[in-house]
Every structure is written in structure tokens, then in C-alpha cells.
């Protein structure tokens, strides 16, 4: 197992140069078993017993300065499958968004992202970060939500005891489904669909057109005749769509 510490050029190779002008990150070559598995922390934990304290310190390197600020970072990485580099990257973004420096993001913080302002489903996306009744998002939730958009790793060993990874096809779909299903009753009703359509199509469409589209859509997907789209029906209707492609962000790999 080869580990090496990043020289600036390594960092550049990884495409993260502009995000980490100073901190060192650990690069582990791809294809190394265990790395992709998301069990990166288990890997660390296992390794740590065999390395001297000295190297330990080096391993955490100056990335330590960022990583150590995050509580339970190993648990987080274990859960989400993010590499330390990603976590650091996300943490910096998190801090940039956190205008009030409370270590938590409010809705306002999200709303102030100006690229997001034109997104028709902005409210839904932001809403996805907030659990019911919550007003703030801490870093862990933030990362956990974004973990849905990590590409699926193909050669990840199946662990029997592990629950389904958060970036699997099903949970990606589940995430999208919940954006439609605002009342959390497990199905997309005609009304919910209408709302989405209305936001996506804006003002240029008559209500009557919208309704016929919504009806048509439900009718097409609805297999059990309850005039709503359940998660299974939703999944079925997207069977041919490459979800892994449509719901993955490259840099989060």
C-alpha cells in the first residue's frame, strides 16, 4: 500500500489545486482496495496501529489543521464515503457559506448563494437540507446530504452488515423523490406534481395545460391506480435513465 504526501504538483493533478493552496492532503492511488470502499476510516484505524505516532502526525499532516476542527470526522467519512480531501473541501465551502460563523447554516445562508437564485426548484433543494422542524444545518448534515451526489463506486466491496450506502441508485432516487413529495406521505400526488411543474415551467403555460400534463404523467406512471406516484412507480418510470450519471457530481468523487 503506497501512501504519499502531496507535493503541490500532486495536488494539482487531483484538480483541487485552487481549493487547497496550502494544505497537504493524502493521496492514495486509485485501485487500492479499501480506498474506494468508503471504509477509509477503518483503513486508517487499522493502519494507525501499525504506524508510529510520528508518521501518524504526518499523515494527518497540516490537513490536520482543518480536519481536526471537525468533530467526529472519521465517523463522518466512514458514513459518507468521502475522502479526507473531500471533507476538507466541503468544510471550506461550508465555512464560506456560513456568514454568521456559528458553525451552522441557516436558510438565509443558502438563499444568499446567488447562482441558486435562478433555480426554479431552489426552495426544494434548500429544504432538503433541513430536517423537519430544524432551522439550522450543521456540517455533518450538510455533508450527509451532499453524499447522495457522490458517484457510485463500482468496485466497492459489499459489506454484509452495512446498510445501503447513501449514494446508491435507490437512495439517490429516494432523495429526488422526497423533493417531489413535500408532505412526506410516500407518494407524489397530483397536486405535488402540479406544483413542481408550475415552478419548472413558470408563467408561460396555462393551468389547463399544466393539469393535462400532470394527469398524463400520473396516468403513465401510476400502476396501482391510486392516482398518485409511489416511490416504486417513480423508480420504475426512471428505470432507463442513468441515475448514476444524472445524480452525481464529478468532483465529489
Amino acid at each position, binding site marked *: 500500500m503506497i501512501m504519499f504526501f502531496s507535493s503541490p504538483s500532486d495536488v494539482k493533478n487531483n484538480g483541487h489545486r485552487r481549493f487547497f493552496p496550502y494544505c497537504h492532503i493524502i493521496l492514495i492511488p*486509485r485501485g487500492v482496495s479499501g480506498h474506494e470502499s468508503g471504509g477509509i476510516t477503518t483503513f486508517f484505524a487499522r493502519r494507525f496501529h501499525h504506524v508510529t505516532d510520528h508518521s501518524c502526525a504526518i499523515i494527518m499532516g497540516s490537513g490536520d489543521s482543518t480536519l481536526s476542527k471537525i468533530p467526529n470526522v472519521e465517523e463522518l467519512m466512514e458514513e459518507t464515503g468521502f475522502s479526507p480531501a473531500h471533507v476538507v473541501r*466541503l468544510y471550506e*465551502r461550508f465555512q*464560506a*457559506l456560513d456568514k454568521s460563523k456559528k458553525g451552522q447554516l441557516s436558510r438565509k445562508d*443558502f438563499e444568499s*448563494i446567488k*447562482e*441558486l437564485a*435562478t*433555480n*426554479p*426548484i*431552489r426552495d426544494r*433543494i434548500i429544504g432538503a437540507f433541513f430536517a423537519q422542524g430544524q432551522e439550522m444545518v450543521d456540517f455533518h448534515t450538510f455533508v450527509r446530504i*451532499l453524499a447522495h*451526489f457522490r*458517484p457510485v463506486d*463500482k468496485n466497492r466491496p459489499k459489506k454484509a452488515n452495512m446498510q445501503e450506502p447513501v449514494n446508491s441508485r435507490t437512495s439517490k432516487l429516494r432523495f*429526488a423523490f422526497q*423533493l*417531489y413529495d413535500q408532505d412526506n406521505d410516500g407518494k407524489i400526488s397530483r397536486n405535488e406534481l402540479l406544483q*413542481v*411543474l408550475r415552478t*419548472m*415551467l*413558470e408563467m*408561460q*403555460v396555462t393551468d*389547463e*395545460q399544466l*393539469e*393535462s*400534463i400532470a*394527469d*398524463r*404523467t400520473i*396516468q*403513465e*406512471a401510476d*400502476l396501482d*391506480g391510486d392516482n398518485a406516484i409511489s416511490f416504486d412507480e*417513480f423508480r420504475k*418510470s*426512471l428505470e*432507463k*435513465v*442513468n*441515475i*448514476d*450519471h*444524472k*445524480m*452525481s*457530481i*464529478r*468532483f*465529489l*468523487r
Partner: protein
Amino acid sequence: VLLTGDFCSRAPPEMVRVSRGLLFLCALVLLLLSEAVEPLGASGSPGGAGDSSGGSHGLQKGCEADVTKSKHPTNRTKKPFPVLSFDYEHVKTPFEISLWVLLASLMKLGFHLIPRLSSIVPESCLLIVVGLLVGGLIKVVGETPPVLDSQVFFLFLLPPIILDAGYFLPIRPFSENLGTILMFAVVGTLWNSFFMGGLLYGVCQIKGTDLNTVNLLACLLFGSIISAVDPVAVLAVFEEIHINELLHILVFGESLLNDAVTVVLYHLFEEYAGVGSVSILDVFLGVVCFLVVALGGVLVGAFYGILAAFTSRFTSHTRVIEPLFVFVYSYMAYLSAEVFHLSGIMALIACGAVMRPYVEANISHKSHTTIKYFLKMWSSVSETLIFIFLGVSTVAGNHSWNWTFVTVTIILCLVSRVLGVVGLTYVINKFRIVKLTTKDQFIVAYGGLRGAIAFSLGYLLDKSHFPMRDMFLTAIITVIFFTVFVQGMTIRPLVDLLAVKKKQETKRSINEEIHTQFLDHLLTGIEDICGHYGHHHWKDKLNRFNKKYVKKCLIAGERSKEPQLIAFYHKMEMKQAIELVESGGGVKLPSAVPSTVSMQNIQPKKPPSDRAIPQISKGREEEIRKILRNNLQKTRQRLRSYNRHTLVADPYEDGWNDLLFKRQKLMEIEKKVMCVSVSLTHVPNWWLHSSDPQAYSSKPTSDDLPTIKVDLASPQSPDSVNLVNEFQKAATQNDPDDDGGLVMKVPFADKDQGEQDNKKEQQRLMRCLSDPGPGGDEEEDEPFLP
């Protein structure tokens, strides 16, 4: 007659039937020829531009007719007025062209009558074989067979194929894989050229191969000619094996985009082969030239594309010439690019891809169908001709066979392709979310077919500069034959063997459309939250720009504001409307359908207002739902294949399912229409009672019902009425014994909506029927279904 008899004896027995028509024609021609001053094919050399082998009777003719005419001045002044004169020379050129086209088309027809054969051997192979036979035949009777002339090939045969490919380019998969495609097209082709050129040169230096005269630049030139994957060959083979979309677009996209590289390398090496030395500056200029050729081509294409889109904005009053603009502007784009030696192929692709979305929004549905049919027809005929002429040229050409050179070329072709693909995928996979598997790599490497472009480029070489031209041509032809025959024939079994994912040919459902858009927005949003400008960010920006400015300029009227989803929905509605009409005729009709087309026939589309709805029990409703569902699933699961040459991606492969499907679809639509728009007290079940067509006109329609609204903007509406009538007739003929088992009354839902809705719905239906604009991608041609 001897000649045609000979031909028939060579042809496989099943083809005799087909060739009977041909036989007749050939006999006719021979008869004409026996009296003609100049026999067929001997017209030869005078017009052949630099054509050493002389023959040119099929295509390149230009001034020939005139030349031969002047050689034989006719002196008729002293004769009495000729009642019946004979002047074959007068029509010679177009006559022979037509004859070749006819031969090509008949051959194509013939292959499809022999299903066993065409399932094993790709059409391209068969066509080459036919070309070989015809060429041999021409040689046997002592004439010189024509050679695939490069001018004709590049100016007339290639553009239709590329335009067809460009206009119907699946934009989404193409743009999503653009990086990979470019990598293969640019870096891959460069690698292939230099690897092959270099190693070939090495081989040529070995003593005892008689190849010592071949210098490095000639080798590199040869490498650049032979290394480009050919779009025509790829299309011909890949469309038959129905590979999945990703692989198809990878190989096909590569074959399209490598044109720029090939053009530049070709001109570069051809230029320097005369000079003999290359400096660093030349290399640098080459790189610049590549950028200019590629981007220039795209720019020229985009310019003409926008022009075409803009023009189509104003065609609403002269619909008949609408399709012409698409063809002419594209061809202009191609020619303009060629003027500057830019990449004509890139220009065509860009032109087609740019104009399509706007043109489609502007033109009428019929024009769209016309465009599609014309493109498909032209490209199909061109392709057939190209392959036949490849065969003929093989017989005609002067060959200089060199075992070492040919064998080494084939081996190097394979090796460099495999190495290139494997190496590039290794790099590409680092950036791809969906990785290319080993199987994918294999198919991409194996699908690298060479074709007529390579031949034509080789043919263009100047013999005085390249004394080894004949050897090059022989090697090129051998490689083409090897790839088309060996790889083309084995790729299908290999695909099956490796269980490579096949194409799941289905129309996108409205669900997919909506959810994909939703996911796009979602991903853009997430990218924004992460502060990362990814693929979606730029796509979003582009979409916004398109919506805000471009569409307004290029699309006429209301439709410019139409969001994509609505446009999609309109297409679907249109399709359904056609199906509705079709299946409406599927129900029992009396044989006495009114033959005169009148507005009566469209009357049924309007639900007569004064019928009471039959109340149907909940149980019955369930039953219908079940039937619907079962049928729906069946059709969903069906795997359909797309073939450029069978225009209709036939959704109704077998007759029975056909009926079921239509009827089920009808009910589905009907139900929807009812659910939304029909008030409880009115029965819209005209279709149930279509056995009594006279009844509709006699029904008194209440005042509040809409009258038929003929869309004034669309002059075609009377025609569509005509169509409606024809559907009914056709359906009656096809389906005389209707069991009626599936025709049941649909529960008309409990939603009580006003007459207002009804009206709107009707109007929309009318709009769809009259002139709804372009329909779905492949299936709006249902009217032409049997």
C-alpha cells in the same frame, strides 16, 4: 440479353425474382445501346478528371455527352423530317445515373427479401459484393468499369449521409460524452496516424521488401488516410447491431469528428511530401491549422444553421418549400467550408444540430416528415451507391499488390486501434462518472471500421508525387474490405457473446422527461451549493441564454416562449391524436365510408353533446384498468430497434399486438380526455359508435359546443382531414373482423369540469390534427403505417 442472363445466373436464386425487373431494364438498355453510336461504358476517358483507369460511365460525367456528341456530328438536313428519332447521347448522363441509383435501390430491396442472408451478413458487405459482381461483369463485356470518383464522392454522395447524421444527432448523449468523443477523435486519430506511419516506415526500411522507395512522409500520409474511422461504414454496421446508445455515440461521434484531424493531416503531409522536410514551425502551423479547420468548420456550419432557422421563421405561408431550406442551407454550409478546406463534415454536423430545434419549432409537421424522409432516403441511397462503387472500383483499379505492405498495414491497423483505445480509456476513465468497461473498450476498438473516405482520399493522391499510389490504394481497399467484412460480420456475434448491453429503444415517456429536467435543476442547484462550476452549471447558463435571446429571434410566434417540456408534450399529444384517429377506425366501420372528403369526417372528433354517459361500476373500471396496465407493460417491455433504413421504428411489430396496442392506447387517451374535460352528462363516445358514421352529422350539436376550428395558420388542415378518412378506410380494410372484445365503455370519470375545458380540449385536439408541428422523433410517421 446475354449479359443480363449472365447476371441472373450469378445472383443467388432468391434474388432472381428481384432481378427480374432489373433484367427487363438491362435488356432495354442493351437494346438501346446496340443501336447507339457509343456503347455503354465506352464513353470513358475524355471527361474523367485525372482518372487513369478511364472508366467513368456511372457518375462523373460533366461534359462527356457534349464531347461525344461533337465527335459524331449528325447531318440530317437532307433527310425527311424524322418521325421517330434516336438520340441516346442526349440523355446519356442522367440516364446512366438513374440506372445506377436504380440498381442500388433494387439491390437494397433484394437483400431485405432474403432475411436469412441479411441477418448474418451486413448490408454493406453484400453491397460491396454486388459492386464486385457488376464490376466484373462490365469487365467481362470488355468495358472499363467506373471508379468511385473522389469529386463525386465528396460533393454528392457524402453530404446526405453526414447531414442525416448531423440533423438527427442525439444531442444529449453526444454532448454528455463530448470529452470522450473528442479524445478518441483527436488524440486517437493522431496516435493512429503516427504510430502506423512510423512503424510502416520502419517496415519499409527492411531490406528485401521492395519498399525502400517509400519515404517517411508518404508513410505518414498513408497512416493519416487509413487511421480515420469512417462514418459511413460505422453507421452501416452499427445500426444493424443495435448497440447501446453510449457505445454507438462514442464510435459514431468519433468517426464524425475525426474528419478535421484527417483533413489537416492529409493536407499537411501531402504538402510536405513534395518538399521533403518538416520544420518545427510547420508542426506548429499544423496545430494552428487543425484548430482553424475544426472550429472554422463548426462556425461556418453554425452560421448557416442559424440562417436556416431564421429563414424558417417566415415560411408559414409557403409551407411547400420549407424542407428545401434545410437541405440547401446545409449543403451551402458544406460547400462553403470546403471552399476554405475547412472540415465540411464538421460544418454539416454543426449546421444540422444547430438548426434542428428551431426549425422544428417553426415548420409544419408535414414539412418535418418530408425532411426526415428525404434525408433518410438520400443518405440511404448514397450509402448504397458508395458501397457498390467501392466494389466496382476494386475491380476497375490498377492494383499493385505487395504482401508485406498489406499484411503489415492490416496488423498495424488493429494493433494501433487497440492500443489507442485502451490507452485513451485509461485516461478518460479518470474523468468519467460512468466508466467505460473492458467490454466497451473492446467494442469501441473493434468498431473502428474504415471506409470510402479513406479510399477517396487515397484516390485523390497525385501519381506523379506518389508513385506508390496504386499500392496504397490496394492496401486501403484491403483494409476496408477486412474491416467491413471480417469485423463487420463478426461484431454482431461478438456483441451477443460478450452480452454487451443492447439498445433499449423506447420513446421517452413524459415521466422521464419531467424527472430528467427536475434532476438537471437539482444537480445544478447542488453544484451551486458546493461552489463548483461543473457540467450542469454551464448547461444551465446556455439554456437560459437560449431561452432568453436565441429562441425569440429564431422561432416565430407563440412557440418561442414554449418551454421544452410543453413542446415535448405537444409532440406526444400529436402522436396520440394520430393514434386516436387510427384506432378510431379500428373499431367496426361499415364498408360504405363516405368517399368524398368533407368536414363530416372530422365531426366525430367532437363529442356529441346530447348523449348520456353510461354509468359503469367500479369493478368494471378496475377491469379496464387492468387490461390497460397489462398491455401497457407489454409494450413498454418490448425492445425496439432503430434502423435508419426502416424509417418507422415500428412499434407494432406483429399484427395482433398491433391492434391490442392501438386499442389500449386509444382507451387510455380517451380516458384521459374524458377525465379532464368532459362533463358527466355528455357522452364523448363517438368512437364506440363509429359504425354509424352518418349519425354524427345528423346529431344536433348544442350551441355551446365548439365548432370545428380549422387552424388558419396551417394550410394543410384539409389534408389532414383527408388523412383521417384514409386511416379509417385503411383500418377497415385491415381489420374486417373485429372481435370487439376490447372495445368497452370506458368509465368516464367523476371529475366534473365545465364545458369550457371541453372546448379547450377539443381545440387542442383540432390543432394537433390540423397542424401540430413536428411530432415525436421517430414515430410521427404512423400515418404511413399499414
